[in-house]
Each structure stands twice: as structure tokens, then as C-alpha cells.
């Protein structure tokens, strides 16, 4: 892994969970845009990484996020049947189910990984999911995960089975 040197000031004493959110370009990313245009307010914990489709979310992205210190990962895609690419969200669902098992083996609580279908019109749902996840993760406390490079490699072997 490359450097990890740049430091921002750590916000406050109280624990703030850190969420990495992978949002598809056509539904959930736009729902987040709409939430903004509508000036809805929600918890500031998530950092959105835009992908074209939830199907682009490699299970390793999720594992890597946890390995880098995320307390939770949120994947947002189009509703079943509404995928801009027809069925990428189903692939995301399949990988999500696999990841759930892997994360359980790693001792991570179920709430830490979430997959949500949020359409471009559902800004309110996006807000609710953001708030709910931040609240749940706050209650859980920081994710306790120690993953070595070897573990990560072993996990990529798991991935092959479920691709």
C-alpha cells in the first residue's frame, strides 16, 4: 500500500464512525445529488465513491475499505429490474451475500456492510439510510479488524469462487 502520511486534524473526542459508500452513477449517486438539491440534512459520516454500476464493486474494494479503517461500507444501487445496465445490481447482491459471510468470519458485525436499492427519486431514503447507518455504527463502536496482507490475498481466492 502506498503512503498514509497526510494527516488531517482528528475531529473530536467522540467517536465518529467512518463509512465508505460505493454509489452507482444512475440511481443512488443521483439520489444523493437530489438530497443535496433538496437541502436535506443527514449524518456526515459517509464518503461517496462513484462507480458506474453497483456491479463494479469488487468484493475486494469492500475488504480493502475495512482493512484501511472503515467502520462501515454502504453499497447503493438501482432497484431490482431498474439497473441502467440491466442486471449489474443482481451481481452486486450476489457478492454482497458472499461478503456478509466473509465479514462474519472476520468477526465484523452484520450492520457494518449494507446494500441498499435507492432510486434517483428517493432522496429521503438516502437520508434515512445515511442517518440510520451512522447511528447503528456509533452504537457499535469502531470496527475491530486486523487483516494482514496474507489474509487479503486469501480472500481474493474466495472471490474467484463467487464471481
Amino acid at each position: 500500500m502506498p503512503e498514509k502520511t497526510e494527516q488531517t486534524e482528528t475531529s473530536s473526542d467522540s467517536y465518529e464512525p467512518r463509512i465508505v459508500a460505493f454509489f452507482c452513477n444512475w440511481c443512488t449517486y443521483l439520489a444523493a445529488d437530489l438530497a443535496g438539491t433538496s437541502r436535506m440534512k443527514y449524518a456526515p459520516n459517509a464518503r461517496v465513491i462513484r462507480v458506474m454500476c453497483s456491479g463494479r464493486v469488487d468484493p475486494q474494494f469492500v475488504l480493502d475499505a475495512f482493512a484501511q479503517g472503515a467502520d462501515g461500507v454502504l453499497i447503493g444501487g438501482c432497484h431490482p429490474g431498474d439497473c441502467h445496465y440491466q442486471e449489474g445490481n443482481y451481481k452486486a447482491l450476489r457478492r454482497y451475500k458472499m461478503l456478509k459471510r466473509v465479514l462474519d468470519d472476520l468477526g465484523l458485525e452484520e450492520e457494518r456492510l449494507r446494500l441498499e436499492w435507492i432510486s434517483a427519486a428517493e432522496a429521503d431514503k438516502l437520508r434515512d439510510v445515511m442517518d440510520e447507518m451512522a447511528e447503528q455504527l456509533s452504537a457499535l463502536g469502531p470496527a475491530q479488524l486486523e487483516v494482514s496482507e496474507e489474509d487479503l490475498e486469501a480472500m481474493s481466492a474466495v472471490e474467484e469462487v463467487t464471481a
Partner: protein
Amino acid sequence: MSETAMNGDSRIGVYVCHCGTNIAGTVDVEAVAEFAGGLRGVAVARTYKYMCSDPGQELIKQDIRDNNLQRVVVAACSPSLHEATFRRATEEGGINPYYFHMVNIREHDAWVHEDTDEATVKAKDLIRAAVHRVRFHKPLERQKVDVNPDVMVVGAGIAGIHAALTLANAGKKVYLVEREPSIGGHMAKFDKTFPTLDCAACILTPKMTEVGAHPNITLWTYSEVEEVDGYVGNYKVKVRHRPRFIIEEACVGCLECIEVCVFRRGKTPDEFNLGLSKRKPIYIPFPQAVPQIVTIDPDTCIEFRTGKCKKTCVEVCADRNAIDFQQTETFDEVDVGTVILATGFKTFDAKRIPYYGYGRYDAVYTALEVERLVNSSGPTEGQVVLRDGRKPESIGIVHCVGSRDRNTNTYCSRVCCMYSLKLAHLLKERTGAEIYNFYIDMRTPGKDFEEFYNRVGEEGVHFIRGKVADVYPEGGDSERVVLQAEDTLLGRMRKIPVDMVVLATGLEPQADAEEVRRTFNITCASGGFFMERHPKLAPVSTFTDGIFLAGACQGPKDIPDTVAQAGAAAAEAMALIDARFVEMDPNTAYVVTEDCSGCKTCIPLCPFSAISRVEGKAEINPILCKGCGTCVAACPSGAIRQNLFEDEEIYEEILGVLAHA
């Protein structure tokens, strides 16, 4: 992972937009820029009031030239608004446009958070992620594809008709597909149109005839789109033609077959008149139908049901032989470059609000039924008579049926106030009855609409501000029903007995809107209507390039707005056609052949059949690839990569957003 693309000496420019106070009001932009300036590889970090303005873009171009920038990051609004702007600026500055990355600190940050510290930390995290990622960006080129000049218009109500005619008159070839036996849509059912009281048929039928006769329009009625394949400029559309059991080319519309049908009178509820009259098994929906071709309904035709009909229709058509009981559905597959969806709306089913008594009390009608009653080509030839033959002496019009109601639809259907006023005027004119409008708010936002409202008030129509809570029979020998509502201006309960109730039903998406949406890959907006690309700046475009929207399929609207939108959709289609080609975003997947093990995992994953196996290795056709990245995520050997969403770019973003702890 290794840093192949650039080393730590890269020269990155970071630009943080104030967006007036939109961003700067919540995010400490100066602190963010200062922070960005300290990130590895960042040569320049600036803030500017409006990055999208010409001077803002000029800043980028100037820095690329003066400071020899190699990468550009702009933190501003959503990429859906200005990604293209800044890519262009980057390119004009002299480097590849894909050496740019955009950070959304407005919609995703400043506008959704209140605490400046939290919003500022988030902005820094997002910018750090972008700075990390942009180092790995590669120079990319947009691919040009030709645009087929032919257009398909789906739905031939006033929206589809207007769009088709606009295009056809400009010399474009148009396929116009309509599922009903005739074009015309809802507008053909109306008597008059508000607020001018133009006769709907008088203004619509000339356009319908023009469509039917236009050399550039291929009109397919009684037909539906079955399948859509392809991409902008190059769609392949499969259309299914339902059998009407008439050879269309042979039928001249003499209608003699209807005359001689063994059914002396109609027995089937007439769809066009909403069941207020009966039609025969062989019929034409209305006198001005286009095309003038009869249709046989196999569910009620005796020949279809028993095979023992005298077939008087065939006899009378002996010279032309247009009737063909053996006809089956047929298909056509056409190539078009663009599609305009104008599939319209359906009216709210009034039975869903049981206390209004629709379907239970004969006195209760929907507004569309009343449109037919007042129409001189309707079931009563324009005579307003009740189901029991009486002429109404008092009429109640109930507004907002299925609109502005948490139990049904929360949105305002936009047209009901105005058409209620129109019906009030027409009913008053035809019957002289006392007319009571029960409204929540009177909405008349259109040219000459308010004036029309005043006029109807002056004609003696009563207005009661209150939502009708109950409709019940007056009892005794009375045929009347009582409308009960709280008059919120007087502050008391009103119970008004009337002979006739008109329910101003709202507009809803078509019953199969979801299916159509999925066929054409259109995003769903609130209420189930089709979503436009941008509510203000791209109101007829969709997220699927080359597919445009017109009319009420996008949301409730009146005829003037529908026609305006149809013209706009036609213009958008023409802009694509006349450009002759379209540039595709390069976010496609590609295979690093030497890493491919030939396992074939990717091949069934691709919904667009873009991946094939060539000499034991996967190969991706960049024209067919739409860039979802599903195969990339699945490739066990990491041999498939995606432009703009390379693995290392995303890993760097993950690292970037999390690095501050």
C-alpha cells in the same frame, strides 16, 4: 499496489469552488485549499468564487500552461452538472481531458450538512481521495459513432403526433408506434380545450390526418414496442403488430362491414366512450380515427367464438377482401438513431376512493366520462343526460380525486382545476344546471387561466373551498346524491344534494409504465413517471442517451406544455441527427490479454454480449460495452480493467477518504 502512472513529483492542480455561498457558506474553502496544497503532488491549490465561470475555467487553463500541470482536480458541484465543462477546460489547457477528476462538495457535502467543521473535514477527505486517484488517470479518447437519422416515436397522442410531424417536416424518417387502433390519445376524447375553448377535434384531427398522409411517417397503430437493443445513434427496435383481422392495405374505411355486422346493435362497452355506449365486434373507435381502418375484436366476434357466423362483413367486402380471420401478430425490426417516448398517462381509478361512490351510484361520473357526454361525437351526441335519462339540474364537481392526497397520490395533477372549470362552463351552457365546484385550492397557473376562472365564476358557477368527505344517496324517492364537505371559508359543514357528481380524477403513469421504462432503460421518477435528465436544464432528455421524453409520461401536464415538450424532444433528436455522430464516454472495459486465463467467467456476466472469446482469451467489443464494470469486478485474474474506473484508481480513493485517522 504499485504507482505506475505517476510518481510523487506529479503536478496536480486543485481548484475549490465557493459556488457563491452555496459551498463557501458551509465549507471552509480556504482551509480546504490550504490542506490540498500540502498533499503530495499538488503544485497549485486555489479557491475561486465560481469555477464554472469563464474566468474560473481560464484559471485552470492558465495554470496548465504556466505551471505545467499534469492533472486537474475540481471540487465543486455534482459531476452530472459540470464534469463536461471542466474536462473541456482541461483539454483546452493542453492536456488530455481525462486527466481531470471532479469532487462533489456541494450536493454531497455543503448542502446536506450544517456543521462547518464536519463539512470541511469531509471536503478534505474527498479531495484527498481525488488527488490520490487522479495520479493514476490515463489519457483516453472518446469514440465517435454514427447516428442513424431515423427516429422512433412511441405513443401517438398529441405529444407523439407533434414530435413526429416536427421531425417528418424537417425531412427525417419517423416510425410512429401507437398501441390503440387509432392515433389521437386522450386529446381525441375531449370536447373543448381550456382556456380558449377550442374544439379539441378541430385542432387535433388536421394533425392526425397529416400524420396518416405524411410520406416521412411510417404509422404503426395497434402495435407495441417489444424489444430495444443498441445504444445512442444505433438502436434496434422490435415492434409487435397485433392482428386487427383486417388487411390494412386493402381496407378503405368505407365502414360498410360495421353496418352489416350480424350484431344489429353494439353489445360491447365502447372503450373510446369509456363504456358509456356499446360497440359491435367490428368497429372503428371514433369517426375521425386515423387510420380509417376497422378492427375486429376476437373476444366478441361470433366467427371467432363459434366459427358459425354468416360473415356478412366478408360478403360486403367481397370486392376488396380486406377481412382476414386467419391474421396473426407480426413483427418488424427497425434501426433508428433516437427514440421519443410519448406514452402518456392514465386517469386515476375513482373506485379507489370508495366514499365517492363511483361505480355504486349512477349519478357519479369521472371527468373523462363527462368529456364524452358533452362531446357531440360522444355516446349521447352532446346531450348531457344521466344514466337514467334525466337532465341534471344540479351538478357537483369534486376536485383533487386521486391528487394531493396522502392515501392516493401526493402530487398535484396540474390539469384538473382547469378542466373542471371548463366542464363547469360546458355543463352550465348545455344544461343550465346549478354547478358546485368543491376544491382545495384553485390552481390556475397558465396563460389566460386565471381569467378563465374569473369568467366561469361570473357565469354563476359556485365555488366551495372544501374537500368532499362523503357522497351518499339523498334517500326517499330522490335520485339525487348528497355531497358533504366542510366549507373551510365559512367554517361550517355543507351538504349539497345534486343530480350528478363529476370526479376530477388526477393523472397517473400508464399501467405498464414500469415495463416500458425497463424496455427503454428509463429511470423512475417520483410517482412512477419517467425521469428527465435534469428537471430544469435537460427536461426532455433521459439518462439513456438518444432517448427523449414528451408529454405526460414524464409527469402530468396540459396540452400546451405537452406540445412544447414534444417540439423540444424533436429538436433534441434533430440535434443528434444533424451532428451525424456522437461521442461516447470512454469508460469501457478492456482486457489485458496476457493476464487473461481464458476462464470465461466474464462472458455470461455481460448483459450486452460485448465479450467474446478469441483464441482462448476474452475480448471486449468497445462499441457494445456500456461500461458498467461488472466483468471487471468479477475477473479472477484482474485481467479486465475499466477506463476511468481502474482498480488502482478506486483503491486510491478508498485510501484517500480514510487516510486521515
